[in-house]
């Protein structure tokens, strides 16, 4: 029995604001192979089509929110102006918007390189400063758990694997963010130099995008291994409390992933996203407390 060819394909890419040109190249290559992009939220979703020569433009729209997919009035005006100029809106994720055209002569959406560099820099800093502040909060939490452990090391032995996990994860996050900022600032300086010299702006290509993706997947693999490893260590020390602590951590990770995928698919406003996130977190805390009380 022959299998039906798949008509929908999903690919996951980690991309940064300096990778948008690489993404354009990738999407055009997919269209030439017969896969047309339909959605960019969480995954790049493609539908099978006739191999077509398409031009993609992936832009950061300054009037759009980074944290919500909702298309506000100003952004709708921006999209309309692009559509009048021959670009069809495909999909958005936060302030990253994808447009496509078959017209090889349509003018680029952004023709001012200086404006594009400023937009990329602003969005990069806003997003990564948010990640940095979350990491700082996590470091505070790690020190709190360490102080709990140090108060009674023998009674609280089960906290040791948790402290090791939190400090290692925080160290990895801080290192990753530091490297990201360093790479970004080097790019920003080179981009401004290229602009002054009238040369093409050195956005990342597919080669760089593939390399950073491979690195990101490996980092995620190490983090997962670390959670599982320290979890087993904690259960060996104290099956009940170790199980509760690491069960909660796994639940938080699973909930975060599920929430991210669900929220990414919606067109909700920032306020609604914050409400759903807070309510889910409170429910999870209540659930953890209930489990602890039941066990005790």
């Amino acid at each position, binding site marked *: 029995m022959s299998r039906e060819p798949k008509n929908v394909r999903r690919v996951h890419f980690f991309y940064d604001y300096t990778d948008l040109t690489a993404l354009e190249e990738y999407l055009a290559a997919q269209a030439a192979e017969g896969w047309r992009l339909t959605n960019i939220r969480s995954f790049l979703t493609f539908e099978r089509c006739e191999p077509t020569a398409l031009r993609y433009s992936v832009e950061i729209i300054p009037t759009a929110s980074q944290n919500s997919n909702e298309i506000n009035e100003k952004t709708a005006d921006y999209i309309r102006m692009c559509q*009048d100029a021959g670009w069809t809106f495909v999909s958005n994720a936060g302030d990253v918007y994808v447009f496509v055209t078959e017209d090889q002569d349509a*003018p680029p959406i952004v023709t001012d390189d200086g*404006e594009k560099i400023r937009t990329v820099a602003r969005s990069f800093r806003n997003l990564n400063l948010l990640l940095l502040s979350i990491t700082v909060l996590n470091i505070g939490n790690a020190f709190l758990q360490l102080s709990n452990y140090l108060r009674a090391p023998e009674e609280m032995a089960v906290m040791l694997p948790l402290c090791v996990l939190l400090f290692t994860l925080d160290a990895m996050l801080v290192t990753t963010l530091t490297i990201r900022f360093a790479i970004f600032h080097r790019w920003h300086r080179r981009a401004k130099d290229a602009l002054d010299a009238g040369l093409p702006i050195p956005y990342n290509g597919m080669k760089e995008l593939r390399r950073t993706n491979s690195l990101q997947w490996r980092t995620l693999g190490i983090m997962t291994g670390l959670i599982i490893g320290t979890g087993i260590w904690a259960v060996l020390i104290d099956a009940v409390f170790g199980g509760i602590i690491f069960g909660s951590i796994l639940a938080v990770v699973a909930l975060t992933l599920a929430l991210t995928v669900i929220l990414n698919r919606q067109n909700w406003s920032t306020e609604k996203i914050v409400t759903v996130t807070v309510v889910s977190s409170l429910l999870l805390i209540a659930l953890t407390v209930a489990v602890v009380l039941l066990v005790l």
Partner: protein
Amino acid sequence: MPRESLQTLTEPMYYVLLSLISPRCGIQIMEETKALSGGRVVVGPGTLYTMLAKFEENGIISPAPDAPEGVSDPDKGGAKRKHYIITGKGITLLRQEYGRLARMAEDGKRIMEVLQ
């Protein structure tokens, strides 16, 4: 794009303001800018959007109440396109820029004549 104070204009800004002597919507501004510059200056829709927002914020252009007759409105999905027109402040800025460019051309002309 903008030098924040808008005391001098970039080339695309200059042509966009020239095109707004009559009320125009986005696509019409892009077409007129290209036509006025003999195809030399192309302004993309994203860049134009940001530029128009900055001009409007600085009172250099304002929304035009209605599309004038004889100018086709490229409505495709039924949504009304916003039209803009240059304000008095914008015309003053345009005159200043024209004067600056004319002086530059005049100064250059004297040297060019000597070179020839």
